[in-house]
């Protein structure tokens, strides 16, 4: 049986005890998937998995507090579930985790750059082997997954769900940790160059908060300080400085919590490379606290606890 068949069988056997199971289905065109909330066996027929199933469905879990739901997770998504559990934002008993052994997902931005015409003109998509054939505006293009996969997949060390009730698919041998060339290149820039880059980039930001709301760890949602009126912490003016300020608030609140699922960057409608900030912050947290969010159950995030003397913070020696 295929991985999808195994998954459907597993979901079918648990569906009766669950409010719903969150998976993916085909979206508005052949190139896009969309989240699917499975409540009946008829819904289950629409379930898909594969390289277009990009959404991290763990984002929805805190919205079902007090109800028992199922969720389908890729390796990266499972780290968000782990982090939510570690922060006691969800109860383990309230979630049934259908884990996938994942072969990676695509970056819609890379697909857009690789196609001969805008992906909005897509006519058909055939997925198979090590790539996909996409027909846009009458022209067929063959794309290799290696060329259009999401950045996070390039450096993934956990392709298989690290926590699950049911794990489907063939297990992978995890790759060793690596860094991304784009991150290294960015960090090699001077402070002045970085400032110029963010001023230019943040002039595109429209403060729609898609980055915040797509984030599985951004659980304040309706009560975010970015939109608080009293006190008015942030101006609603959309200058690059205010926009950057919001991103700084966002990234600071994710210190030690961000699992690098990349949803913020994927959700951004104006292609702001937000993961540059996330990965930088995560590197600091790793250097100082030896902590990686979502890496294992029963970890306490460093900023949710307290030590009188931190081993790597020199507080009195200077």
């Amino acid at each position, binding site marked *: 049986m295929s991985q999808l068949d195994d998954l459907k069988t597993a979901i079918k056997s648990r569906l009766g005890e669950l409010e719903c199971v969150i998976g993916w289905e085909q979206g508005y065109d052949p190139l896009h998937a969309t*989240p699917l909330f499975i409540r009946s066996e008829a819904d289950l027929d629409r379930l898909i998995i594969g390289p277009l199933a990009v959404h991290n469905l763990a*984002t929805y879990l805190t919205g079902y507090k007090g109800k028992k739901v199922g969720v389908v997770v890729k390796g990266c998504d499972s780290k968000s579930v782990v982090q939510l559990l570690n922060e006691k934002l969800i109860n383990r008993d309230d979630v049934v985790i259908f884990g996938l052994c994942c072969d990676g997902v695509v970056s819609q931005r890379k697909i857009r750059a690789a196609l001969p015409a805008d992906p909005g003109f897509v006519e058909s998509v055939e997925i198979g082997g090590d790539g996909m054939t996409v027909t846009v505006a009458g022209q067929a293009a063959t794309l290799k997954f290696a060329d259009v996969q999401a950045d996070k997949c390039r450096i993934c060390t956990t392709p298989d769900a690290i926590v699950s009730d049911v794990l489907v698919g063939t297990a992978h041998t995890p790759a060793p940790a690596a860094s991304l060339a784009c991150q290294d290149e960015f960090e090699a820039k001077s402070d002045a160059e970085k400032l110029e880059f963010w001023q230019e980039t943040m002039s595109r930001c429209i403060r729609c908060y*898609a980055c915040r709301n797509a984030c599985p760890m951004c659980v304040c949602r309706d009560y975010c300080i970015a*939109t608080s009126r009293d006190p008015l912490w942030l101006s609603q*003016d959309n200058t690059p400085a205010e926009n950057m300020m919001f991103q700084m608030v966002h990234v600071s609140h994710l210190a030690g919590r961000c699992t690098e699922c990349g949803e913020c960057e994927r959700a951004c*409608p*104006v292609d702001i490379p937000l993961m540059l900030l996330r990965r930088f912050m995560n590197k600091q947290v790793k250097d100082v606290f030896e902590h990686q969010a979502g890496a294992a159950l029963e970890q306490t995030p460093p900023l949710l606890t307290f030590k009188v003397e931190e081993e790597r913070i020199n507080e009195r020696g200077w």
Partner: protein
Amino acid sequence: MERFITKENLTRLAEELVATCRVLAPVAGGGSVTFRRFQPGMTIDLHTRMAAVSPKAATFPQTETLLVVKREGEEKKPELIETLPQGKSVVIGCRPCGARGKLIFDPVYETEKIKDPYYLQRRQNTVFISLACDRPETTCFCHSVGSGPADPDGSDVLLTLVGEGYVARSVTPAGEEILKLALFTDAGDKGKEADAKNAKAREMMGEGHDYAGAPAKLLARFDDMDFWQAQSAKCISCGACTYMCPTCYCFNITDDDLGLNSRRIRTWDNCMSHTFTLEGSGHNPRSTKAHRLKNRVGHKFSYYPDLHKGVIACCGCGRCIKQCPAGIDIRQIVKAAQEYSE
């Protein structure tokens, strides 16, 4: 009036207009195409794709300063300074759907009782030079909401790509003034080619969906929260749909206190946000995302048409579909309400 302008001359037009106007044009940067304030040296990107954000900022900027207050010590009375928008603007290279968005704004911001001076000032002083679309995207549905890929309504000039330039047709007197500039030349018989291209683009869209009866069908689902919970399950309550939308016109007003000076600003607001209807008492009549999505869809396809001669408050650009992080399709929601049977 019908004229012709080469691609190079369109850029030159933007460069010339900069001297007297604020010029907004789609410019690529960081992988995204957005409307920028054009400066000589920039490359206008008309054909890579439709700009991610609509051109509504030309008449309804994301931040509008409503007034400025200046204080000089305790004794003197604070000075109130009016800040009505000054100068003229030209939008070059929006699509007909984007230009049409402001037709939805007009009956709201200019009524017998209320006239919004900030909006009207910009509206009167902004010229839209639109580019007709030659191929529909999977998310396009302008033809279902009373428009089409070469719809002139809302534009002042309509361009159609023919060979290495554009056939330019004036729609309004302001558009005609622009076409009198020397950069435009005689169109010869290129007009026929433009007509053929526009007809082909329309034909490619096929038959539109019929939204007749949608207002009543949506109202019939008003109290059916099970329906709206199912429709909104994947919504993440961000504002991408509303901020991208050419027809969403809601705003927020806040005071920015800057020491002795302060500023009252009006900024885009969005009905997907919890704070949109949060009342001073703490009560929120739209407490869940289901209530909020119901409002967004209902407003566009039911309440607005009921108030404004049946006009649907949507221009079918599809931005809310393709830019939604969760892939919510507003067409499917309205259809589900239309097809709903008890």
